[in-house]
């Protein structure tokens, strides 16, 4: 769709070549668009022709190479994005797991830690108390996940 006045090309040509017919002159009297167009057309033509060709354009092979390098970087980022997301989720899960376990059994953990003091050792032997096997199993799982995550992070960076 074009809303250009249908006389505009003729008007521009007439202005360019300074060849005016009666009908074009008559149209000029009633079309503001054409008046505006021919008031700037010769200047724009001259402006477009002032030489800037001495400027050396960037080499296309350099642009191609740079674009490919940029593309590779973008591709790598796109491919690693899901992995990064999974890694982040894993960090959160493991950290949350540790926090949950410690909060859930904090009193027992605290008591267990106290057994490492000399008085605590004597008391615990006398009471024969210890943490449940399920707790230790959970800790073992979380510890394994932490180690695997740490190894994955180190290896992925390398």
């Amino acid at each position, binding site marked *: *769709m*074009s*809303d*250009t006045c249908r006389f505009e090309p003729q008007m521009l040509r*007439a*202005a360019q070549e*300074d060849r*005016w017919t009666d009908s074009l*002159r008559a149209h*000029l*009297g009633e079309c*503001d*668009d054409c*008046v*505006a*167009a*021919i*008031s*700037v*057309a*010769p*200047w*724009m*033509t*001259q*402006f*477009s022709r*002032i*030489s*800037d*060709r001495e*400027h050396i*354009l*960037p080499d*296309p*092979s350099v*642009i*191609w190479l*740079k*674009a*490919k390098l*940029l*593309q590779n970087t*973008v591709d790598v980022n796109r491919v690693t994005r899901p992995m990064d997301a999974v890694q982040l989720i894993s960090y959160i899960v493991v950290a949350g797991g540790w926090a949950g376990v410690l909060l859930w059994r904090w009193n027992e953990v605290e008591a267990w830690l106290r057994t490492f003091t000399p008085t605590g050792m004597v008391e615990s032997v006398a009471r024969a108390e210890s943490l449940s096997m399920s707790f230790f199993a959970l800790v073992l799982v979380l510890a394994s996940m932490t180690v695997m995550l740490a190894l994955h992070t180190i290896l992925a960076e390398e």
Partner: protein
Amino acid sequence: MNAFAMTIPAPLFEEARSRTGKPSPMDEARFEMFYRRNAGNLWSYLFRMTGDAATADDLLQKAFFRFIRANPALAGEEHMRRWMFRTATNLALDHFRETKRERSQEVETPRQQPAEARELLRHDMMKTFAELKPRERALLWLAHVEEADHEDISEALGVKAKSVKVLLFRARKRLGELLTKKGLAPQAKR
């Protein structure tokens, strides 16, 4: 002549089709061909928009980076040229937004006094054109130099096709006023 039907004689992208009819991705040779045929016009446009050769170089490269990334074999040649001008226009307007050099500031012009008459003329013309808003510059260049129709201009500038007529009229009036003020307006031949 349609504006964006510049000077590409060969059906560049037609050649890229395989026997199955599916377009193959653009390779370096075809890109180089497309670049050599279009980069000059695009650079002139960006240079007139920004008034600075280095900025025009930079924006030209960015436009072609996007062009390569856009997998151009999927589209026709005509579409590609329109796409390039639209991208270049967006990049130039973004550049003005980023550097806050809209109309209030002139585009960069050579600091030393140009020696030759031709250089002086170019300097004055660049200065005059720089007094327009970036969008006015784009409108005038696309309409008068690239001879784009209103639909192509609307696509390049991201405005409604119906608005182009009014915007172009205003841009022409504004340039006309500037030229009159500077005593450069052409004499009406009525």
